């Protein structure tokens, strides 16, 4: 049985803030999908919808100085970390006011002021980077932790193995946060990975691990707390697997013929926003509180679109900036 909010030392306002982050991720992405349909956004767009409890459960526990690296499915992590939604939407629109001045797009969100060291579009490629960031922390003894977020598909890449080993060998402060949403593109986990349980791979490097219900924000928060504490303690990495599901296709182009409606329905009944809302209702929160959040979020998202729309794009000379640092 999970703990009550109080036992988790989570006050209601803080809980509502986490709820708000989930709703903000959801609405932001729904709007992004709409804008993609209207060709305001191009390239690949990977939605996080359905997985919000993982980002909102884990990331707010980090300190300001900490690092995050993640995959291309990165809006949720960026929003949970508190990146400015105006600049995020502007990035998706390819504008000069975007987080990467419109050069990165949806798959490459960066904000160094928030320790957000990037979305990475090459599957698995963020893992060695996480090891390097954590090594720097250890080298400088500056107490920073790096959370490294990746999907079940990335587990089968060689870099996964190399990174776990080196992080464990050098006792680096990395939280490996696996978002197991059951699929890598159209390939079900069981058809891509031979093991019964991916956490066994962590065991093999003597990395402690936990598996958690990724639809349950509080469960994620609890486990992530332990994971981050462990990493910060200097005892080396922690491996946390969140079981979750993406409600939408892999990207906007996905024909979605590899899974059936029933399975989707099953998971949608466990919508992380719904579940957490029910939980908060038990704490006595009423419709009004949620409505207020919804209104605030809707406004923020509308404002983000307006900001993005009205922002200028880089002039063409901008093409040649940012290649080399002076």
């Amino acid at each position: 049985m999970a703990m009550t909010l109080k036992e988790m030392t989570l006050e209601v306002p803080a809980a509502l803030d986490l709820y708000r982050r989930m709703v903000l991720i959801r609405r932001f992405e729904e709007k992004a999908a709409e804008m993609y349909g209207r060709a305001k956004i191009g390239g690949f767009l990977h939605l996080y919808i359905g997985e919000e409890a993982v980002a909102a459960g884990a990331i707010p526990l980090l300190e300001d100085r900490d690092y995050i690296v993640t995959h291309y499915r990165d809006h949720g992590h960026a929003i949970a970390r508190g990146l400015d939604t105006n600049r995020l939407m502007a990035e998706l629109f390819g504008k000069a006011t975007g987080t990467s001045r419109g050069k990165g797009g949806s798959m490459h969100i960066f904000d160094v002021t928030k320790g957000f060291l990037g979305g990475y579009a090459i599957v698995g490629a963020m893992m060695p980077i996480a090891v390097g960031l954590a090594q720097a922390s250890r080298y400088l003894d500056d107490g920073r932790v790096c959370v490294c977020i990746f999907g079940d598909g990335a587990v089968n890449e060689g870099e996964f193995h190399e990174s776990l080993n080196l992080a464990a060998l050098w006792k680096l402060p990395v939280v490996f946060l696996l978002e197991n949403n059951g699929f890598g593109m159209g390939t079900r986990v069981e058809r891509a990975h031979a093991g019964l349980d991916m956490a066994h791979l962590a065991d093999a490097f003597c990395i402690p691990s936990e598996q958690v219900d990724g639809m349950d924000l509080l469960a994620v928060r609890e486990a992530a707390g332990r994971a981050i504490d462990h990493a910060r303690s200097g005892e080396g990495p922690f491996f946390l697997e969140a079981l979750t599901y993406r409600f939408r296709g892999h990207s906007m182009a996905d024909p979605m013929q590899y899974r059936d409606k029933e399975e989707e329905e099953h998971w949608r009944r466990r919508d992380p926003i719904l579940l957490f809302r029910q939980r908060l209702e038990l704490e006595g929160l009423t419709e009004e509180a949620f409505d207020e959040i919804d209104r605030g979020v809707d406004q923020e998202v509308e404002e983000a679109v307006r900001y993005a729309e009205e922002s200028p794009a880089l002039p063409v000379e901008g093409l040649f900036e940012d290649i080399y640092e002076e």
Partner: protein
Amino acid sequence: MREMTYRDAIRETLRDALRQDERVFLMGEDIGAYGGAYAVTKGLLDEFGERRVKDTPIAESVLAGAGVGAAAAGLRPVVEMMSINFTLLASDQIINNAAKLLYMSGGQIPVPLIIRMVSGGGSQLAATHSQSLEGWYAQVPGLKVVTPATPYDARGLLKSAFKDNNPVMFIEHSLLYGLTGPVPEEDYTVPIGSADIKREGKDVTIIAYLRMVHVALEAAEALAGDGIDAEVVDLRSLRPLDMDTVVQSVRRTHKAVMVEEGWKTGGFGAEVASGIMSQAFDDLDGPVERVAGKEVPMPYNRELEQAAIPTYLDVVQTVKSLL
């Protein structure tokens, strides 16, 4: 003649090979249940089953290496890498094993392997997903590298690749999949290592490959409007490279412009330019000029991306600078 898309031409040729040769099988990421990242292999899993059409984990190195191993055992695997960008994770297997096993074994182990992938940009996929790296593979002895620009050439070159007993890098372009063109019903092949004159002309030779062939053709049309008659040579294969066709054309036109989508410095176009100079220096009225992608990591923003990829206007301008 029937018309067919580039995508369908490739799919039909894969299907033919699967039907005709039991040694042929396909493997790659999401080629089966998902239907292929670019829908090229759509329907093949249903028709041929999991033994012949194999979805793999996301693990490019073992994917390429297992292709080499299966080829070494006498099969004829077709490995789909989705994108040439992802081959960076498999480049050791391609360059050190696929290309060299025959040599390192003193001739004992042929590697009849086809590796398919897209190259190039233009879809706002940003820096890691928009590169044109085929020139690197074209430098490697032991590999063959083909770059079809039309449905006809795609089918003909893929047929040749299935008859070849060497590793063939089969490079496609995602912006060409929807392109329609004539494809004969009857059997034919396009030999690997033969360039093709896609448009005859007498005033200048424009050399290109893959999607840039169409940019070159567009430029030739525009130049025709100005009374300039451009010949367009499609390299079709980068290794082996058919310099004869290129040089003969330049001997007639005395001017040449090389067009490629990738970065200029160290680009494969430098090879073509330097080869022309070496073989036809006295026939040249001036230097072989090069149009290439801007030397930047590809930006996401659409206008910036478009500014980074050569357009027909760039080609027109460069041709005119020669006259």
